Each structure stands twice: as structure tokens, then as C-alpha cells.
């Protein structure tokens, strides 16, 4: 299959117009010794139908969430997605556009980003948001860099109950710029950060403290208390939030967060084996807004005072400031941000509340069923859409057996922390029905030695 329109005859005609006689003449500037002498060692071309057949075979080697019922979470959640989104987002004018450099013919993308920024700012309770980041983890790493830049401090407080992959990404970003991550322990019984045991002098050294809300184990943190602890030392609070939880939980802006980041995978984007999702990044106050990484869209007018949108505050960015830019990010996740914008507007105020409430209620329902079956709550902190249980069970083995029965059971935490080898992290979204939860808890309950 080829998408090249010009026929060989036309190609020859064009070559001739350029004063050349054959295709190879186009590459005369490449030293002969460097030119490939044989074709690339790749499989041969496929017709479209053959490609589809091949891809179907590959896809069928995977068990997907349409055939298995998932209770997996840990940063990627199986939410319901309105059908209309895929139709709108696949419109060629969105799909096949580049970053909106020519504003006058890119008003569609620019306005949608302005709407995305508005929705994220409203959702998080912050003044402004950027056009998107790669994902939640990189958004968090960039937030930590911004905090160091703004406070001129070189330490970042990362709680041990932050998603382990986010900690690892933050380490990669920070340590190579000689910034020291300081791991903040959590209470082994509640699973939450315990500010009462933390040294107040540490707050004076940290550029920022990160709080994940809810945290990796699914527990809701006392964000207000944590915020006042770090503010007492003049550090910043970076909140990493699950956006769906904001249909129920207090907005970060309302407890004093300085920077809010998160992953918008839950906002209408397909799971897609973990990506692409979209990272969001919001902050308040002129000095932090002026230091935000990434693209930002602003409102303006044309010569006839018509409202329009442009990329703005571009002097922060790599194409102008080069090595002094606030970040190297260029391409972001615009189409995923567009999906999030569509999702949030379809849900609206009431829909978001309803989805959040169903996550909360169904999670509580499953948790109680599993406790009744004899499992223990590993952490006592209150939960939203995710919780950790423990039991004297070989989770890897149980997971495989549950998969044979059509269930993706949850994430064994042993791979992240040996002390948590008895623990399993489970998530429930609005997409799970009572029937599924009942069947699942019945089966999983059967493995509990305490029952």
C-alpha cells in the first residue's frame, strides 16, 4: 500500500524540471560510502486488508477489558466513555492538525485548548492551567522543577505513598539536575502521611511537598494539614490528584495547593495499555503562572475586535528561550486534552458528581464484601475509588486463576514493596455492575484462608 499520489511518469517529469534525470540524483549530496547498499531488513509490504488481518491476530493475543472484568487501577481506570467522543475526536480537522502555530486557521484547536484550560482550572480550583503535559508522572516531575525554580531550593518532598512509577519518573528528572528527592514516610497502619511525626525544620528545606490525593494505596490524605505543614516552612504544596475524585473531594485550590497536576486518562481516554493519556498542570499566582512549562493559550482580539485565541506567553518556551526555557516540552497531548474537554462537558457538573459517587459507593461495597470474606484492610485511611486489602494469599497465583475465570483481579503490591507482599490494590469504577462485583467478591473470597 502506498499513499504517494504522483505516478512514475509524473515523478520523471518533476525530476526533469529540476534538471535531474533519475531518483538517485536527488541524493547526490550523501557520500556514496554511506548510502545503504541493500533494502532495509523489514518485513514486506501488506495490502490494507492483509494488514487488518495481521493486526487482528496480534490484538487477539491480548485479553482485553471487553472480555475480562477489571478491578485494576493504580493510575489507570476503566471508566465508561460516551460514544460520541470517538466520533468527534476523529474529525480530520483535529486529528491531522499540527500545534496551532497559525492562529487564524487554528481557532478550533486553540479554542478547545482554552476550554480545556478553563475546565482544568475550575476542576482543581486554581487560577490557570496549561495546554497539557505527556502524563501525570511527567507533569509531577515538571511541577517539582518549577517549585525548585520558584523557591530556589534544591530538595523535593516525595511521599512514599505516591505512585511508585511517579516517584521513579520524578527521580529521573530531578537527580540529573542535582535536586535531591526526600522520601517522606507514611503511617504503616493508616497508609497516610503523618505530619505529626515530621520534623518542622525539614519544611524549611523543601522547595515543595507532593501529596497524592487519593494516594497510591487509595487513601484520602489530610491535605489541609499537610498544606499548612509545608507552608510553615515557606515551601509549596504540589497536589497530584485523580480528576474524577474532584466530584466529591475538596479541590486543591481550596486547601491551598500551589501547583496541581494529575493524569487525565480517566477523562474519556481509552486505557490503551497505559498511554497516550494526558497530564494536566494548573497553578495560581502570576509568578508561578509565568513559570509554567508547556503551551498556554490566551484570549485576544483581531483588528475588528473579534474574539480569538492564540498561543501566548511563548517566551517561556524552548523555541524562544532555548536552554533557558522553563521546560523542553514541545509536542504535548492535545488530542487527549480535547477528549478530556469533551468528556467533562458531556458529564457536566451533575455527571461528574454522579460518576464520582458511583466509584465511591461501589468501592465501599466491594471492600465490605471482601472484609466479610475474611480479608483485612491493609490501610485504615478513608478511600475513594481504590483500596488495599491483605491476606495470606499468593496473589500472583490467585490473579492467574481469577483471569481464567474472566477477572483482572487487582495489583499485587509485592513488586513495589516486599513489606506489602500480602497486599492487593483494587479499584472499582462506575463501569462495574453489582452483579460483576458480587461474582468477583465471591470468587476472590474463596481464596481467603481466613474464611
Amino acid at each position: 500500500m502506498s499513499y504517494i499520489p504522483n505516478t512514475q511518469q509524473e515523478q520523471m517529469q518533476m525530476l526533469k524540471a529540476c534538471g535531474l534525470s533519475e531518483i538517485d540524483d536527488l541524493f547526490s549530496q550523501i557520500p556514496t560510502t554511506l548510502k545503504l547498499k541493500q533494502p532495509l531488513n523489514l518485513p514486506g509490504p501488506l495490502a490494507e486488508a492483509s494488514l487488518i488481518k495481521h493486526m487482528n491476530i496480534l490484538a487477539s493475543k491480548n485479553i482485553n477489558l471487553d472480555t475480562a472484568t477489571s478491578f485494576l487501577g493504580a493510575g489507570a481506570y476503566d471508566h465508561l466513555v460516551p460514544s460520541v467522543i470517538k466520533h468527534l475526536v476523529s474529525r480530520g480537522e483535529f486529528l491531522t492538525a499540527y500545534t496551532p502555530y497559525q492562529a487564524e486557521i487554528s481557532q478550533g484547536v486553540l479554542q478547545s485548548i482554552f476550554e480545556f484550560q478553563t475546565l482544568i482550572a475550575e476542576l482543581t480550583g486554581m487560577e490557570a492551567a496549561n495546554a497539557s503535559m505527556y502524563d501525570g508522572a511527567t507533569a509531577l516531575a515538571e511541577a517539582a522543577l518549577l517549585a525548585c525554580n520558584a523557591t530556589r531550593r534544591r530538595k523535593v518532598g516525595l511521599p512514599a505513598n505516591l505512585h511508585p512509577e511517579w516517584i521513579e519518573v520524578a527521580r529521573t528528572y530531578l537527580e540529573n539536575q542535582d535536586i535531591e528527592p526526600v522520601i517522606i514516610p507514611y503511617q504503616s497502619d493508616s497508609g497516610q502521611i503523618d505530619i505529626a511525626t515530621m520534623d518542622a525544620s525539614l519544611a524549611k528545606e523543601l522547595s515543595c511537598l507532593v501529596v497524592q490525593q487519593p494516594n497510591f494505596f487509595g487513601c484520602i490524605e489530610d491535605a489541609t494539614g499537610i498544606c499548612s505543614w509545608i507552608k510553615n516552612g515557606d515551601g509549596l504544596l504540589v497536589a497530584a490528584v485523580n480528576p474524577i475524585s474532584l466530584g466529591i473531594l475538596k479541590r486543591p485550590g481550596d486547601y491551598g495547593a500551589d501547583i496541581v497536576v494529575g493524569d487525565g486518562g480517566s477523562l474519556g481516554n481509552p486505557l490503551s495499555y497505559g498511554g497516550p493519556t494526558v497530564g494536566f498542570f494548573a497553578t495560581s499566582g502570576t509568578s508561578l503562572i509565568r513559570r509554567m512549562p508547556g503551551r498556554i493559550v490566551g484570549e485576544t482580539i483581531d483588528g475588528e475586535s473579534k474574539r480569538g485565541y492564540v498561543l501566548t506567553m511563548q517566551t517561556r518556551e524552548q523555541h524562544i528561550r532555548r536552554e533557558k526555557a522553563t521546560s523542553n516540552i514541545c509536542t504535548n497531548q492535545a488530542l487527549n486534552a480535547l477528549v478530556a474537554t469533551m468528556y467533562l462537558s458531556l458529564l457536566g457538573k451533575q455527571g461528574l458528581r454522579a460518576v464520582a459517587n458511583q466509584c465511591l459507593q461501589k468501592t465501599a461495597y466491594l471492600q465490605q464484601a471482601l472484609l466479610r470474606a475474611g480479608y483485612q484492610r491493609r490501610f485504615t485511611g478513608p478511600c475513594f475509588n481504590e483500596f488495599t486489602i491483605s491476606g495470606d494469599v499468593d496473589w500472583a497465583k490467585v490473579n492467574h486463576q481469577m483471569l481464567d475465570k474472566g477477572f483482572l483481579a487487582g495489583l499485587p503490591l509485592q513488586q513495589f514493596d516486599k513489606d506489602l507482599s500480602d497486599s492487593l490494590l483494587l479499584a472499582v469504577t462506575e463501569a462495574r455492575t453489582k452483579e460483576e462485583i458480587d461474582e468477583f467478591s465471591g470468587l476472590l473470597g474463596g481464596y481467603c484462608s481466613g474464611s
Partner: protein
Amino acid sequence: MNLAVYWGGIAVDHKTGVPLLMEKSKPGRIGYSLPPLDVPELSLDELIPKEYLAAQIPDLPEVTEPEVVRHFTQLSRRNHGVDVGFYPLGSCTMKYNPRVNEDIAALAGFSRLHPYQPWDSTQGALELMYQLDSYLAEIAGLSKTTLQPAAGAHGELAGLLIMKAYHREQGEEKERQEILIPDSAHGTNPASARMAGFVVKTIPSQLQGGVDVIALKDMVGPQTAGLMLTNPNTLGLFDQNICEIAKIVHRAGGLLYYDGANANAIMGIVRPGDMGFDIVHFNLHKTFSTPHGGGGPGAGPISVSKELEQFLPYPIVTKEDHRYTLTKPAKSIGRIKSFYGNFGVLVKAYAYIRIHGPQGLREISENAVLNANYLMHHLKDDYYLPYNQQCMHEFVLSGKWQKAVGVSALDIAKRLLDYAMHAPTIYFPLIVDEAIMVEPTETESKETLDQFIEVMKAIAAEAKEDPDQLIQAPHQTPVGRLDEARAARKPILRWRSKEI
């Protein structure tokens, strides 16, 4: 000359524009239906302490599904894309995006996978990643690929951290602090180098547009960590001294990084690994046509030499006894993104490579280069061509003849919009005054190219005869030239309800 001047929209009221979603909101409307809650509902207070609860729900717009459809359809009609018309944006490779790849990425077997499923339940996804890794390594002429980076700049960061890890391994991390970058480079190069904790040194270009080899010799030394280079460079010229450049940098103990933004010029023709590069990134959303989506998602995998494999970010896909698993290289630089990169984008790039095969990829580069040369040949009498030699997949004109009569590259760009064509990249690379960087790609027909030539010639004539037409342009677009200074001086970055 009879040129149709038009711009898309029909249904959109150009005077008022499209109201924002938030302005369309009416209390009580909803565009979503949720099955009723089927588990017993507990009161919120029982589940979550009151002090953690929101005082009020975020004020999201309340609109219905038909309104949302019409809203985004109207917005889409105010947007240019490759599907709408010619998009010769230099360095961005705006080629046709095959729709079959969208269907494939949307298959439930790919789109409905959870990243933490047991590996035995995702062997197809892992196999795809493993194969794509090897295809990209073959195209790069290198050994192993990480698919983790989400975009080109992200790949640059990962590649530079690999350089750093390599020098650490040699015991030279402290000494080797400098990354050399040509003055013609993409802005992401120096920004990424800084983020990786390096110091940036700029190498001048010589008169033919390539790296100034003599200057390079003077600049390398025990402080050199490496060189970042685009080849063909941002002028669209292949640096013929590349072997010598590689030798100079390697002799000094540095590594070579290949910015693959311009890889559409070289597939199957020449390989960065054979030129002497140690690390290569690809922009899958450019070269491999996984659409750009109005600014992403992209993917920026990097391929590296055998020696550098041990430093790749984790996880990478490993094959053992016909089973695929995710593993961590021995001296990995760490994790750079959650999960496994932009998997959905990887699926499309894999499909793109499979549908083309080796000969097809080569023909892509041949035609990309042919189309660029054809345009350059026909435009160089009307626009100053600062580097008058054969080009690769793109070329850079200068608007300095037009500037002399008061018309800037920006004015030329804006006038093009009136003809339903996207403008080339302007004011880049920085080493060309009034730069106009044109990249047609291989998927444009001769008719489209001829039309662009005609329009560009008409604009050049207009610059002489009626410069005001250009200075005031665009005239036919949904909005006129927008006031960027106003936007930046008093930034309005979100909508706010007037009632507050």
C-alpha cells in the same frame, strides 16, 4: 491571474465566532447517562470525613450531547489540517495520516488493555512493541530501541541522560559537562540538554549551512559530553562532513545524538547509525504518520548502539523462549514516563511500517525529497534562496527581498492562509533572516505543488504591487490577524463567569 481566494467555513458566524462551551451552559442540562447506582448507597459522611469533602461541585458546563456535537463540529470547521489542505510546515512532516491506523489502534485488543495486566494476557501488545523496537533500530542502523518517550523532546532528554550515564560509567561524568549544538538546531535541543543537567555550547554553521568543522575541532575536548545534530539539518541540507564530524566527536570521547525530526528524508537511503550516531530519536507523529492531533500525542522512541543498551530507560520488552516480558536494563537511567510510552501511537507506527515495507519506506523518502526539490526549483526566482543547492525533504527560503519593500515573512505566511493553505514554518532556523521553511512531504500531488507555486508567486508579485494586502492579511479566515501582544500583556488564560 485567477486564483480562488477562499476559506472553509459555511455555517460559522464569522462575526461572533463560536461561543465557549461554558457560555452555552444551562443549569440542569446533561450530555451523559449513567446506569442507576445498583449497590446500596451509603451516606457520604459514613465513608469520608466531612473535612475532606468538597464544599461544592466544580462548576463544569451543563450541555447536552447534540450541543456538544455541534460545538466541536463548528470548532473543527475553524481548523486547518492535512485533511483540509496543503500543510507545508517545515520540520513537522505533515503528511497524510492513513485512516486504517486509527481503526487498528481502536481495536479492543489494543485500546482496552490495562497497563498492569499480567504479561501472559498482553503477549500481542508486547510482541508489537518488541517488533517495532527492532524495526526502528533497523531504520536507525542501531541496536535497540526504547519506546517510552512521549515526544521528540522527551526522547532527547532520555538520550542525553543516556549520554550522561555512559560518561558516569567511564568515570567522567564530572568532566564531561558540555553538549555541542549547532546554531541551526531545534530549540528543544538546548532546552533538553539543560534539563539533563548539561551546559550548552553553540557551534556555528559554515557558509554552506553545515557544521563548521574547524570550529568543532576547537570546541571539542575532555569537557565534551556529546554533539546533537539533525541530518539533514534544519536547512534541509545533508551535512556531507558527517563522517568527519563523528570522528572528531568520538575521538574527543563524546557521543553523537541524532535529532530525527528530519528522518522523512532518509528512510532506506542512509542510516544515522552508519553515519556514526550513537543515539537516534524518531518522531513517530512526523515520519511514521501517527497523526499529530493538533499538538500531540506523539511518540519519540530512541534507538541506541549496542554499547548503550544497558542504559536505556525501563521497562524495555525482552523476548525469551517465545514469551515477551518487560525488563530493566542493567544500568538503566531510570523511568521517564509512567507505563510503557504512548502505546496507542506505537500501534499506528507499527501498522504504518508494515503496510509500507522496506521499499515503500524508501519511496516515501524519495518522493518527499523530490517534492521539496520541485518546489524549491520553482520558487527560487521569486524568493531569495540563501543556500542554493539541492535540498533533501525541505528547504529554507528567505523573505529578505520582500522585507526590502516592507513585507515580512509573517505577512507572507498570513496571506497564504487566505488560500486555504497552511503557512510554512517561519523565522526558523534562526540563522536565516526572514526564514520560510517549506516541507511538502511525499503525499502531496504535483497539482497541489503547482498550486502552491502559483500562490507563492502571486504573493511575491503582490508584495511589490500591493503590499498592504499582505500586511493586513489574512482576509478570508474566520478571524483576522490576532493581537498577540495584547494576549501576552494581560493574559486571559481561562473563561470566567461574568456574574462573579
